[in-house]
């Protein structure tokens, strides 16, 4: 994403849009994480309270997803950089 193509007004506008998108992205990640960890960790509905094993599973599931997502982000940036160089951009 080459920002030099924008004048200062446009750069201000774009960073406001990016900020809003990051917030939406975070909310979507949050909702998906609740779905993912609920489906993986909660299978016993003999009680409505979260058991200690279920709770530990939810915390591990959350931590592991964040680390997974962070590592994908790093590799993703490298792949993008390789592609940009390959296209001589």
């Amino acid at each position, binding site marked *: *994403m080459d920002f030099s193509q924008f004048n200062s007004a446009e750069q201000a*506008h774009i960073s*406001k*849009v*990016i900020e809003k*998108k*990051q*917030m939406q*992205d*975070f*909310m979507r*990640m*949050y*909702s998906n*994480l*609740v*779905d993912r*960890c*609920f*489906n993986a*960790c*909660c*299978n016993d*509905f*003999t*009680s*409505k*309270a*979260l058991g200690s094993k*279920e*709770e530990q599973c*939810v*915390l591990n599931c*959350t*931590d592991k997803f*964040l680390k997974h*997502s*962070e*590592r*994908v*982000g*790093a590799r*993703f*940036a490298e792949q*993008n950089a390789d592609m940009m160089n390959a296209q001589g951009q």
Partner: protein
Amino acid sequence: MSFLGRGGQSSSGVNPEKMEMAVEQLDMITDVFNRIVSSCHAKCISPRYAEGDLNKGESVCIDRCVAKFFEVNKKVGERLQSQGPGAAAGGIGGGSAFGSL
């Protein structure tokens, strides 16, 4: 993104920003509701569909499932906040593509 001028805090007119926030809140509530309907359907309803009514087991399962979903929703929220501002401020290091631009 509205290029229109900011709506003043007039008492009679419609304040676009307040509207936008209210609509966003509505969308979030609906989204959580729809996710619970879908998750608890998968957990509690057997796909044999022998009859159209909910049996005892399914009804009790639904009640507990909704309660548990809210608890997990709270737990995950607390965990994300405890990850420090990065997570809470909506942009975990690698968590979003923007971080890697």
